[in-house]
């Protein structure tokens, strides 16, 4: 299908940046007005992304090209099925998170809210930029932008703890991006191009040893953001950020940007055939498996709810890595679909954690006795998504598990099925006590009844929880993430253009 030249990909990015500017200009004096910018930018960005959906869904592409930075590499945007998958998800969840943010930040009377919304808008602009990047170079620019823009959000509280977490974050991610840069330079010198291609661009260049080393560089580079162990250290510390930040950025945008980069490298720089030829899938799958299990064990040991969720994120992200590393159709589908499934479920869990904190001031699981009796709606949504994480049907997590296990069997590696199933059990082990205490223990005396939060907070929670069920019940309905993921997989595995 002929690609369509359009300004829309650029517009989707520019609109958030403009919004950031407007937020800065409006400032704290007209806070309702400022929030209006956030919401309207979120909605209009979503509409722009949606407007490109039908064509991409049927295998088409949008292209927006500007100038060449270095010969053969331009600052170009391109929207293919995989871009759409990520952009569609992030821009939808931005709307939801914006609503939640407003409720959250106002309930807590947080300081520096203008800075907060400003950085948030820049983050989303970068995320969409990463999604729409046509080549590794463009992706890298937005990738760095995202790293920087997230920093003010992490240190938002400005406590010594937050500052330390911020420092750690910068050290991890900026050093990681050096690896990406190095990898990029080597790739360019080998091939003379950095543009993503469905069949990969590296085949036929360089020696196998060279390509293997290069792969390690990329894995370290993108793997840090994707929190593959042992490069995950920054993620749990970054939980000092306000909850909406943890929810969107550390469950969706930032960490998934790492995953996104990883998938681009694996399938669009190396290509399925070359990956198989070099045997690079298996070591990555093993690393992912170790992360899955070890992070789950870490999660078991945490008492702070957000920390437990953070380790759970680390573990779940590696499901995606495992899926794409197995290099089979079902596994890749399972991995890619988990980007969306995990996003909806984990964002709900984080939203619930935030709601609990606002309503009761509690952060630790051991203090949350009887909370299901005082905040029923919140905790029901929490329970649904926690069970979904463990892969219990009919929630979205089950669909992931189904495809990943099928993929592992397809690849002739049943050992990874064992990993996935063990992890499911561990998920139950660390979520179940919480649900159980929440619903079956007596709340402490003097706890308020009917303590569900305001609808600003509750609505996002309910919407995302319903989406998690919807994606598990009829995952292959038209225009759902799974359908889009199938398009992606068909392109990268079938080699169709």
């Amino acid at each position, binding site marked *: 299908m002929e690609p369509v030249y359009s300004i829309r990909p650029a517009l989707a990015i520019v609109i958030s940046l403009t919004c950031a500017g407007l937020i800065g200009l409006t400032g704290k004096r007209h806070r309702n007005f400022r929030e209006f910018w956030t919401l309207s930018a979120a909605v209009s960005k979503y509409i722009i992304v949606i407007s490109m959906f039908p064509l991409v869904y049927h295998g088409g592409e949008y292209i927006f090209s500007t100038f060449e930075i270095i010969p053969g590499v331009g600052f170009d945007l391109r929207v293919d099925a995989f871009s759409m998958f990520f952009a569609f998800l992030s821009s939808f969840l931005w709307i939801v998170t914006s609503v939640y943010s407003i409720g959250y930040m106002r309930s807590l009377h947080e300081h520096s809210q203008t800075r907060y919304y400003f950085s948030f808008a820049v983050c989303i602009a970068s995320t969409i930029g990463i999604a729409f990047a046509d080549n590794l170079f463009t992706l890298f620019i937005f990738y760095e932008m995202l790293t920087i823009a997230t920093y003010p959000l992490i240190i938002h509280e400005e406590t010594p703890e937050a500052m330390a977490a911020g420092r750690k974050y910068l050290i991890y991610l900026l050093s990681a991006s050096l690896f990406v840069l190095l990898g990029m330079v080597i790739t360019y010198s080998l091939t003379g191009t950095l543009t993503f291609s469905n069949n990969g661009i590296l085949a036929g260049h360089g020696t196998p040893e060279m390509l293997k080393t290069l792969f390690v560089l990329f894995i370290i580079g993108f793997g840090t953001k994707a929190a593959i162990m042992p490069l995950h250290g920054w993620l749990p510390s970054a939980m000092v950020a306000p909850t909406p930040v943890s929810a969107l950025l550390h469950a969706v945008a930032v960490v998934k940007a790492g995953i996104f980069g990883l998938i681009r490298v694996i399938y669009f720089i190396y290509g399925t055939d070359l990956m198989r030829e070099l045997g690079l899938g298996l070591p990555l799958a093993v690393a992912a498996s170790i992360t899955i299990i070890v992070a789950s064990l870490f999660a078991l040991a945490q008492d702070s709810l957000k920390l437990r969720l953070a380790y759970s994120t680390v573990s779940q992200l590696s499901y995606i890595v495992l899926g794409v590393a197995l290099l089979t159709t079902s596994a890749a589908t399972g991995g890619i679909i988990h980007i969306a499934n995990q996003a909806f479920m984990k964002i709900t869990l984080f939203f619930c954690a935030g709601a609990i904190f606002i309503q009761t001031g509690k952060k630790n699981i051991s203090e949350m006795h009887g909370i299901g009796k005082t905040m029923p709606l919140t905790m029901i949504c929490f329970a649904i998504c926690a*069970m979904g994480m*463990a892969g*219990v*049907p*009919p929630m979205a997590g*089950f*669909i992931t*598990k*189904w*495809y990943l*296990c*099928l993929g592992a*069997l*397809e690849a002739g590696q*049943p050992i990874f*099925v064992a990993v996935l*199933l063990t992890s*499911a*059990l561990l998920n*139950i*082990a660390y979520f*179940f006590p919480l649900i*159980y205490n929440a619903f*079956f223990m007596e709340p402490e005396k003097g706890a308020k009844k009917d303590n569900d939060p305001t609808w600003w907070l509750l609505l996002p929670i309910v919407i995302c929880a319903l989406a998690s069920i919807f994606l598990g*019940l*009829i*995952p*292959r*309905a038209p225009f759902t993430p799974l359908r889009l993921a199938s398009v992606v997989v068909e392109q990268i595995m079938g080699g169709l253009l």
Partner: protein
Amino acid sequence: MEEITISVLPVIAVLLPLLSAGPVFFARGAISEDFRDYLAIGVSAITFLAVMAMIPTLMGGKIIEYVLISQEVTPVEIAFRVDHLGLIVAIASSFVWMLAMIYSRRYMAHEHAKDRYYAFMVLTLGAMMGIVLTKNLFALYVFFEMLALSSYVLVIHEETKEALSAGKKYLFISIGFGLFLLLAILMTYMIAGTINLDQIGILPHEGASKLAYGALFFAFIAGFGAKAGMFPVHVWLPDAHPVAPAPASALLSGVMIKAGAYGIIRVVYNVFGPELVSEIGVNTILAILAGITIFLGSAVAISQKEIKRMLAYSSISQIGYVILGATLLTHEGLKGSILHIFNHAFMKGCLFLCAGAIIHQTGLRNIDDFGELGQKMPVTMLCFTVAALSMIGIPPLNGFVSKWILCLGALEAGNIVLVLFVAVLLLSSLMNAIYYMPIIIKAFFGPKSKKQVKNVDPGLSMLIPIVALALGCLLFGIFANLPLSIIELAVHALLG
């Protein structure tokens, strides 16, 4: 080739209870407490009627199918398929369920958290119906997990320390072994390319090595056996069944363990097929496990003093009969096995409801204190006696019929090891007598208990379900042909 009709009846039987869980939960707040109770009872009654309404179609030799969520939108379609095996289990399940609901109204009157109780009762009913009425293993797994999670809430209803720890054990074992089941289903899907339950033996003979097939078989058995309470994965059952409120215990022990047994039958006949099973020889191992289950359950039951705990161990033993029958791979054996699923639902349902009535009226749980109960609660104890005698296998009660057919099946098998099971069955009957007879004797002829208790049968809404089940034990003993007419069609479909 069987004829297929499309009908929404199975959809009603599954989705109505599933979807009414929410309305039941909020009914008290919105309208009134009575309304909630009647709504829950009404839902289970309609479910039962929907199942009954399928009988004429199936007796006409047709099969009902209905695609709920098509292949277009899920990885594997969620579809219903009612054949004779599914139907007979569904009839017994939904009938006992309806009675337990009626019974609950009075029994639970002074309990806490009734909104939750009724909501999860109907939810669990929907999951149970889903398990027996679905077309493929994918949907079956979805409902199977749903059953595990929703029945957990029934197990821990009392929220005592004991109940909570039993519940935890139950949940982890269910989910843990559920993963084996998922693994097995996935493997089957990979090897056979289908997981539909509409033909005999979907696994190809040359699909994998004997060893791999053996492993696959036992992965299935681990998953289903854990729910059925089969040795050695029965450990949760004696803790979890007694701690639930009596009507829920009746369902857990009388109906829900059958979900596991039903699964095992499906695996042996539909997934592997009798030929493949006997070729890899796993049926003998399974038969031995079933034999151990029978003995172990009975042996431990003898030493129990607490009535509900004793009944729970008795269930373990009885589920062994069902599994044993299924492994014989003979017409009579399978017939006996399916008939015992049906009959045991009535017997054990009745016994647990009687135990509940005793606890509700007198507070007595220990068998030693049951002296003179026969005089004080004559109707209850009479029904208890009928069901217990049926359990022992005394004619003309229904337990006798299923044991008789099982024995015939074992003889028909011809294999020495399997013929030995005739002895197992007879010996186990004797053991049943050892633990059931003392209760009956004590209740009617025993010395007066030291504990003074007020003495009446419970109210009609508790008594009617008990009497209905006891009458069922009698009627299906005399008119055993009623269930057998359906079961014979089921056996015919599964064994050719």
